[in-house]
């Protein structure tokens, strides 16, 4: 595909043929507000916030559905564009709560970001008081239609990324809402609880309930510990606790996607039943011990067995859950320290 040269806000921009104006502007570092567009989803043209003017073309055009062409001259802002955007944002706000400080999406909400850019005014429109019941049937996440801006990202995510289409926009006009198949409680639908839609919701309409306990304060890029796909993810932490997970969009394996285990299966990490000190069995019960005591005992008993019965009397099981480095060390331990090849793991199970 060839390169195309165009001008956006007076700046000369090179873009690959086939890209949209929104994408071209984005890679040139020019911000265009948008709420329904997403790099992983097909262009939608629903929120109309990304409107631009193109020299020689009549009217305003959604930059997310307009392809770049040679010699185009584009303006992303003008008094007309600004006033239309302001009105659009004010309408969205009129239908919502506006109680940002108590919203689980506070500070990562894309509506807040867009609002900061267009600077809407308070109280020009009054919407119907939103009074949708919450869908809390799912054990991990909630759907609060009262915060929904009907961008359709969740619906499209389930369809285009999860290939499931468990969600749809049901009813019309003011009644429009996001709904699981047959309008049943979410958890009873065909939903696979992957949380992909939750991760894409630009506002606080679909949110992980763990977020009600506060936002994470740090994140660490790592790898999922469940299956052999090896998805990349970030562990979200708050102090010494893991309080969430998000997919790593840069990881070539999963490109941000995760399944229910990878995304929500983290509660075991800080579980109260975690073993926190070495245990030594006395009679039929375990007694807590120091590391010194436990390690000395293990080394002494293994050395004794080796001396009395030979190295073949000891067997070592490695783990398909442990790291490469740990598995390497434990086979080195079996071979070089114990002195035999009685080393295996549950590879075949």
């Amino acid at each position, binding site marked *: 595909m060839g390169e195309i040269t165009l001008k956006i806000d007076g700046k000369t921009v090179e873009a690959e043929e086939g890209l949209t104006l929104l994408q071209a502007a984005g890679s040139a570092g020019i911000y265009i507000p948008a709420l329904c567009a997403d790099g992983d989803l097909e262009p939608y043209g629903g929120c109309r916030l990304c409107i631009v003017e193109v020299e020689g073309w009549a009217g305003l055009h959604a930059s997310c559905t307009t392809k770049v062409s040679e010699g185009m001259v584009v303006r992303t802002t003008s008094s007309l564009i600004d006033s239309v955007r302001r009105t659009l944002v004010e309408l969205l706000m009129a239908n919502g709560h506006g109680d940002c400080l108590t919203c689980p999406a506070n500070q990562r909400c894309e509506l807040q970001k867009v609002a900061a850019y267009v600077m809407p005014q308070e109280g020009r429109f009054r919407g119907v008081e939103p009074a949708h019941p919450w869908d809390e049937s799912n*054990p991990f996440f909630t759907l609060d239609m009262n915060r929904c801006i009907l961008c359709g990202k969740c619906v499209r995510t389930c369809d285009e990324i999860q*290939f499931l289409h468990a969600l749809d926009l049901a009813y019309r006009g003011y009644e429009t809402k996001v709904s699981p198949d047959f309008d049943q409680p979410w958890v009873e639908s065909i939903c*696979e609880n992957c949380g992909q839609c939750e991760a894409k919701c630009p506002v606080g309409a679909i949110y992980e309930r763990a977020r009600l306990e506060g936002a994470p304060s740090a994140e660490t890029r790592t790898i999922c*510990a*469940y*299956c*052999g*796909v*090896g*998805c990349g993810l970030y*562990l979200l932490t708050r102090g010494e606790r893991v309080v969430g997970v998000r997919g790593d969009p840069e990881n*070539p*394996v999963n490109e941000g996607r995760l*399944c*229910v*285990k990878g995304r*929500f*299966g*983290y*509660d*075991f990490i800080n579980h109260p039943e*975690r*073993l*926190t000190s*070495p245990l030594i*069995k006395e009679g039929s019960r375990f007694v807590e011990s120091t590391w010194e005591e436990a*390690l000395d005992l*293990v*080394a002494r*008993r*293994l050395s004794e*067995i080796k001396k009395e019965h030979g190295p*073949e*009397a*000891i*067997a*070592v*099981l490695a*783990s*398909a859950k*442990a790291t*490469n*480095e*740990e598995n*390497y*060390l*434990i*086979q080195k331990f*079996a071979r*070089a*320290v114990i*002195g*035999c*090849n*009685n*080393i295996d793991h*549950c*590879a*075949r*199970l």
Partner: protein
Amino acid sequence: MTNSIGDLAEAEAFLVIGSNTTEQHPIIGLELRGAVRRGARLILADPRRIDLARYATLYLRHRPGTDIALLNGLAHIILKEGLEDREFISQRTEGFEAWREVVEGYTPERVREITGVEVDDLYAAARIYATSKPAALLYAMGITQHTSGHQNVLACANLALLTGNLGLPGGGVNPLRGQNNVQGACDVGALYNVFPGYQGVMDEEARGKFEEAWGVRLSGQPGLTVVEMFNAAHEGKVRGMYIMGENVVLSDPHSRHVQEALEALDFLVVQEIFLSETAELADVVLPASSFAEKEGTFTNTERRVQRLRQAIPPVGESKADWEIICEVAKRMEGVDPVQWEYNHPSEIMEEIARLTPIYGGISYQRLEDGGLQWPCPDGDHPGTPILHVGRFTRGLGHFSPVEQIPPDEEPDEEYPLILTTGRVLEHWHTGTMTRRVPGLEWLVPEERIRMNPFDAAKRGIEDGDWARITSRRGEVEARVEITEECAPGVVFMTFHFAEAAANLLTNPALDPVAKIPELKVCAVQVERCKD
């Protein structure tokens, strides 16, 4: 996998056999769903009508334990119709004629007899797989956990050789590895017969290299495999065991036997994050840190080595497994502590890279973004997304004749049903982790014996009834879920639930070569519990 997850998207057709992909490798499942939506054709062969069947162009329900007959039968049709890739066969393979003679015997009619798959479906499947290129073959434990496991794998490879589907994007023979790091554990030598990098313990040159690096004499005698270890413990030949993070009491076949074996030991040490059913039996339990609390690498099913990073400090006084092993080693009699001084896992990886040609070019620095797929022999090598491009490691691809062999245990009057085991999307393995995640536990709180309406009606069992399931090795009680997913004569259970442990029932009979127990087939009876 010979190929990469990313290049599955280029396949025009898929043959998926013995893999519940959308539940067990969910993100690869998404790749399959996406490819089907874009027009790729998917053949699914599985005794259970799993979720993936909804996306399949063609679903073949063969009887458990008849994979070889099915695969040979497809090859038979491909040859009969002249759909094989003659150029690939003549230039890149050997052993074709001898193999062809064996496959001759697998006529569609005979294969229908053995597998229960209709002749028309056999033809349709053979044509789809052989006329779409590239075509990817995917399999998982449904192929390997049989007494004929290694022959099943060969039968898969034969089909890919026949159609020239190796060494190209979108093709390949792709075993999907179960646990997150089962690939890596094998790569770095946690196996009874090979050093890191699959260098044989009987190979003197390889042994010499490790003896020099580790400063000790090493045994050239292959050791015991998991199931053999338990047998040896029973017989008093193995007296001490060191188990790092495996819950063998629940994950291994014939649980009662495993438990007795562990109880018979003089000394058992278990390194674990929870007091698992296995740790309960230990003399000493050493608290290990979880994956969130340590640094290291995992190798995924497409041979990609990736960095694990520490997010929180170790919980309680727990320590990373690598630290614990070093501490124990240093305290053992006659050990040179210098061999066990590592400041960081990256230093262990440096040692691995020095001794393991396939990991030769892997270092923490190079893993910073995206990871590397082995073989990666040196620091400039970009890694290998697709194996066998242009040539096979051993030169020519070998056709290996394999014959259908019945499972070790077949249904009879006393035990008329076949039990096959597996897992569900929401839980992981023996449940040590996922059953401590309240949301997952809420979604799937208990075991269900899944059975066909026909078998249920015959036994007067209704959906949700409690039933007792019995094999020659043990019995378990659980509720029944009546479902068309299982064919008549076949029941399904998971092994996530200690209170209804399917592995009390399963058969520890081993594949003689791969030493894999036959977890996918055993004979059982199911009866309604009185209340």
